[in-house]
């Protein structure tokens, strides 16, 4: 009987493993239901809309001058120090999955943000004890893939191009 009990225990463990492989569709449906329990108040929605409008304004304000500069640069008017060849290429890590990476998304976007250096240590990209001891500043640039539901799916870290010194 103890062997039967042991086999039943193995079966229970096997079922438990199957339960952890539950379809991402199920998880997404349930998380959606949790979010619906506590919809954002009107004030928060307004603040979010305002934030999005501000971000869009900043994007246009930055993009138009950059587009004009790039057009001028393509005609050879820019100084050579600003030519692309004088800058080291941007270095990025691979995209690293985040906890909601298994939740399906259709309209994901990549958003570039600055995160604390300690985030590198979280992903094992930097010895934790070296965080803050290097003279690279207290923040690093990261690209985050965000789904249309606002959940972050993956992140990669970026070393911004550094101007070469002759």
């Amino acid at each position, binding site marked *: 009987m103890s062997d*039967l009990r042991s*086999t039943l225990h193995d*079966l229970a463990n096997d*079922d438990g*493993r199957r339960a952890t492989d539950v379809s991402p569709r199920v998880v997404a449906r349930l998380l959606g239901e949790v979010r619906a*329990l506590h919809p954002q108040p009107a004030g928060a929605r307004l603040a979010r809309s305002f934030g999005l409008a501000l971000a869009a304004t900043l994007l246009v304000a930055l993009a138009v001058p950059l587009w004009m500069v790039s057009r001028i640069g393509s005609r050879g008017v820019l100084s050579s120090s600003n030519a692309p060849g004088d800058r080291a290429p941007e270095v990025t890590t691979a995209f690293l999955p985040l906890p909601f990476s298994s939740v399906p998304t259709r309209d994901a976007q990549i958003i570039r943000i600055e995160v604390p250096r300690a985030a590198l240590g979280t992903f094992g990209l930097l010895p934790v004890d070296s965080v803050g001891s290097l003279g690279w500043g207290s923040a690093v640039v990261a690209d985050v893939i965000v789904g249309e539901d606002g959940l972050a799916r993956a992140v990669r870290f970026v070393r911004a191009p550094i101007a070469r010194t002759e």
Partner: protein
Amino acid sequence: MDDLRLLERVRQGDENAFAELFARHRAAVYRYAAHMCGYDAADDVLQEVFLALLQQLDRYDPGRSGLQAYLIGIARRQALKRLGGPRLDQWPDSGDFRSPADIPEGTNAAMWTSEADSDPFEALSRAEAVNRVRASIAALQPVYREAIVLCDLNELDYATAAIIMQCPMGTVRSRLHRARALLVKRLAETDAPGTKSCRTDEKPRASVMVVNE
């Protein structure tokens, strides 16, 4: 953090709290759903159970049962609805509604190799034993299968099982006793004749061990 506090945070829309509750109870609900409705339906039943919890959070009364018993109780109603019977003992015999397709193809033998037993034969033998017990449980009548799932697989005590099964504790005890006897008998019947004599030079198979109660 206990279930009640997590539920309170879920009410506030805390996804992490829900994720913790889900991780804590999904295996028990999944086991019940898989063995009572079939593995193919287990994901759907699991979703329905947790949706019912979220959509009617105020219906859960902690004074009556623990959250896990409550969730399995919902799974039981889902199972009854799917199988078209108002009571478990009115369900048709398992042979009428369980097809071999409802039972997963088999436990992957490789999964055992990552555990303590690194002997491949031992791993294969255990995986085979698990699959035979799984099939034998599926062949039991629902009332007996339910007792095995609740008390032996989910390791619930008689009192909790009685709440879920909506019967006295004595009934749970007697059903479980009968279920175990039927399970051992069925395993003995399905043990291939001559298996022992062919493999006497090898380690005993789990299926043979079961017979030697």
